[in-house]
């Protein structure tokens, strides 16, 4: 079966939990051929995972970092010259703007009619096959149309010119995805309900390709969290909230089956009108042979907390640092090792400052990215996850498979994964997190019991074989070759 695999910001260009999932999937289904469409922020990213023999194609779509899309996306000089010549204001007005206006209205309202949004995107894609992208999106006709669209919206009409310009410039960056002409495939499998899924929608409308959608975190939920920290005015924030909601609705609408990685996520999908019978949970799986209890030399004498997390707002690293402040008061010999890179330098600096403020320089160590997470987990007496948002995190499953006692915030699918094999605390409550860590420090019997239970739970429920066979079944059920 030919699978169009649609990803964004993950495999094969970036490391991380979703990338691990994607690698396991492609590796586990050698009988299927994959064509990967990878949406990346910048074209300078490198392929981090070796492309397996069943990966027959890779289309990298940089949304930022280029001027002319043809710098990387398919195109030839003569064709571009012909396209530029044919992209007249009249053609834009006649064949592009009606679709753009429908798209914008739907996007600004959260896509109450996802099928209409899909048709509009497809019409724009068809236009851009024969017309020049830059000449279209920089055209006076588009700007006039956009201003008229703003004027008809009571909220967006209050935007100042600076924000309006930036909004449209950003929007047309997202529209670069329309330049991808999907190859014929038997199934389009999107790993996120974002712009990457638009390629699946186009494949469906062009070739009748059925769509499958896997959701790890909930895309719209994570975008909403992200937007909370963006320096935008309220009308611009509302637009982007609705835009991302419209992408989610679009993906849900065209998917034959929506596959969250935990039941918790399906609540959000249901809220977006996905019927329960269309939702099927498939849990992530980890390699129990790789992640296992092992003896590793420990450098410190006291009790150790390990967290394998990015230094990131969503992971709420600050929560963990502040929790260690409480822990230190009771157990001065306690230390905390944080393994993971930082994606936001400002937030990383805040974390370092907080560590200094609390006098934890010698007890909280930022160790950066590790290539040996299986060793990292075994350096700790307790493994902690302090996030404010999670899907069904690999870092948690890996810690469990390493037979470690876990303390985790009760977000996303964490409770579902952990069951009764670890301690749950509310998010953003460092005192509660610190007290749970101290409780485990003080009770070796409890640590051991929870660790054994956790490993047993992972081996029985969250193994790679089960996860791969679930997708084999989904591909067989919904793929066109079936």
């Amino acid at each position, binding site marked *: 079966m030919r699978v169009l695999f649609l990803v964004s910001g993950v495999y094969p260009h970036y490391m991380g939990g979703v990338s691990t999932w994607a690698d396991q999937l492609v590796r586990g289904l050698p009988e299927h051929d994959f064509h990967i469409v990878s949406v990346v922020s*910048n*074209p*300078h*990213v490198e392929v981090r995972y070796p492309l397996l023999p069943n990966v027959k194609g890779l289309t990298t779509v940089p949304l*930022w*970092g*280029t*001027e*002319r899309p043809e710098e*990387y996306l398919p*195109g030839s*000089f003569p064709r*571009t010259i012909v396209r530029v010549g044919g992209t007249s204001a009249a053609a834009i007005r006649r064949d592009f703007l009606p679709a753009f206006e429908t798209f914008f209205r739907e996007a600004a309202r959260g896509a109450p009619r996802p099928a209409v949004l899909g048709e509009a995107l497809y019409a724009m894609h068809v236009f851009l096959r024969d017309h020049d992208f830059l000449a279209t999106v*920089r055209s*006076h006709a588009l*700007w*006039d149309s956009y201003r008229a669209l*703003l004027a008809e919206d009571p909220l967006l*009409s*209050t935007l*100042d*010119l*600076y*924000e*309006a*310009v930036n909004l*449209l*410039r950003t929007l047309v960056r997202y529209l670069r995805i329309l330049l991808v002409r999907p190859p014929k495939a038997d199934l389009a499998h999107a790993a996120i309900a974002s712009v990457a899924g638009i390629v699946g929608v186009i494949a469906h409308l062009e070739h009748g390709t059925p769509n499958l959608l896997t959701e790890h975190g909930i895309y*719209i*939920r994570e975008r*909403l*969290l992200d*937007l*909370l920290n963006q*320096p935008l*005015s*309220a009308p611009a924030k509302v637009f982007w*909230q609705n835009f991302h909601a419209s992408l989610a609705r679009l993906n849900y609408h065209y998917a034959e089956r929506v596959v969250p990685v935990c039941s918790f996520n399906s*609540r959000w999908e249901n*809220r977006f009108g996905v019927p329960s019978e269309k939702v099927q949970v498939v849990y992530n799986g980890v390699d129990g042979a790789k992640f296992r209890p092992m003896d590793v030399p420990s450098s410190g004498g006291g009790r150790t907390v390990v967290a394998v997390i990015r*230094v990131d707002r969503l992971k709420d690293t600050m929560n963990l640092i502040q929790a260690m402040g409480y822990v230190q008061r009771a157990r001065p010999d306690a230390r905390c090792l*944080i393994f*993971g*890179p*930082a994606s936001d*330098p400002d937030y*990383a*600096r805040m*974390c*370092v400052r907080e560590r200094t403020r609390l006098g934890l320089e010698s007890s909280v160590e*930022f*160790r*950066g*990215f590790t290539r040996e997470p299986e060793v990292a987990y075994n350096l700790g007496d307790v493994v902690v996850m302090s996030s*404010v*948002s999670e899907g069904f995190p690999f870092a948690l499953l890996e810690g469990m498979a390493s037979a470690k006692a876990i303390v985790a915030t*009760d*977000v996303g699918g964490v409770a579902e994964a952990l069951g009764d094999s670890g301690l749950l605390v509310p998010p*953003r*409550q460092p005192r509660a997190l610190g007290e749970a860590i101290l409780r485990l420090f003080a009770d070796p019997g409890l640590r051991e019991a929870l660790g054994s239970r956790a490993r047993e739970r992972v081996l029985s429920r969250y193994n790679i074989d089960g996860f791969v066979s679930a997708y084999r079944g989904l591909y067989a059920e919904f793929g066109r070759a079936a």
Partner: protein
Amino acid sequence: MAVDPLALDAIARTASDVEPRPKSRLEAAVILEAIGYKDEDARGHAFADLFDLADAVKEASRPYAWDEPVIEAPRRRDRGATLYLVGTFYNIGWMIMLIALFMGGQSLWAASNMPVGVSTAIGLGVVLGLASTGGVQQFAAWKLIYYRSQGNTPLARYVMRRSLLWGSVGLVIVAVLAGILEVAAIGLPAPLAALSVGFLLLIGAYRLAMTPVFALKKFVALILASAVALGAMFAGFRLLAWAGVDRVGSVVASQVLGLGVLLALSIVFTRAFVFAERRDAGRPDDPPFYAAREMPTNVRPPRFWALAYEGLPYLVYGTMYFVFLFGDRLVSWLAPGLGPLALNYNSSYQIGVDLALLLLVPITVVKFPVIYRLAEYLEVSSKGADAIRPGTFAEAVARFHTALLVRVLTASAVIGVLAYLAADWIVPFAGGDAQSVAIFRWAILGVFLFAVFLANAVFAMAFRRIRAMAVLLIVAAILNYGLGVLLAMTYGSGAIVWGFLLSATFLGVASFVHVRRLGRDADYAYFAAF
């Protein structure tokens, strides 16, 4: 079980600490989840689930809503004095000529007391060195700025490396062709052709190497390089003269020394600013575990034609700038009596127009602080204008353009009048004769109009309207050459300056009309400049 309004109010108050104005039920739901609420908690407060609670919280948080200010990163403000100083050194090529003419009795153009053959050789080298690299310099500078603004430093570095490589290859090809042409067609003796080629290579290489320093506005480096190069040139000249080296030898050697220092420092600075970076522009206090923006060593090369297509107007503009500027001078060197392609450096003409061209230095000094703040001004003005009624933005753009032109015109008029009145003293001091004085006076007017074009061009380029400026330069260059030949044949070489004056008039007027038109549609122009 009924909803407890006080409990709901407490939840809303807490939620508004995270987001002062929840704008939708979904945003409120995300906030509630982030502060630890779950479906069970919602049910405990008599709601069906978290989303229903979120609905109620969104409404209940209205009294706590406040307009959250959009927090922007602090700006670095350059002081006016610094900008004037930078403006002084921005046209370093002209600066060297100015100071050299008046203090050393020498210049890149070998203004006076030099054999005609040497002057012709150096002059040709300078013209071809500037013209053959001007386009690459504009192109590379634009790409460097664009890709860095897109967070794509690796590609910026890649394009800069390739531009320097291919720019150098082009420079060498031009040098070889120029050498052959100078010997075979123009009739220069081989040693003078070699001298010409040497200047061509030095000037061209310096221009290429200096590209990132100009593009990234590394002002301290710019001033330092200029000051050290000028110091080396004058010190070298005095030392050689004191050691008894003849004038030709000391002039040529000290110029080569000055340009060599400039080239060496440019290479050092370019390495430091562009190629020594291993990370994106970070800060010294970035934590060591912050490695996400570590730059890859391998860059996937973009398609060359796609780069070239977008960069073509920059290549044309940068090249035609010098092709236009030197048009009348080259025409003045034509020596039909010595052969169809023979060139003889016309000292009288050259001193007149070059001295006038040096007026660009004080004009640049005056306009630089204004132009430097254009991008910031556009941002502030656009924030004060409604998107759907952007009339105030168009007015602000027009005001800025008017203020810029008034400043340029005032500076030009004052400096021009002073220069006109002092012509009888200035021109002979630099080695000119009576014809040079007359040419100087006409050329002042031409430079005055060329300064208007330059101000308009910078303004237009802030809106990415470089294509129009490139077209204007092509037309102006044709006018400058065509009218120059026609006038020289009709009225003699002294009249060539009228060709420069008329073509500069065309540039000044046409660019003014273009920018005024652009200003009428300023909101669209502002949007489309990406």
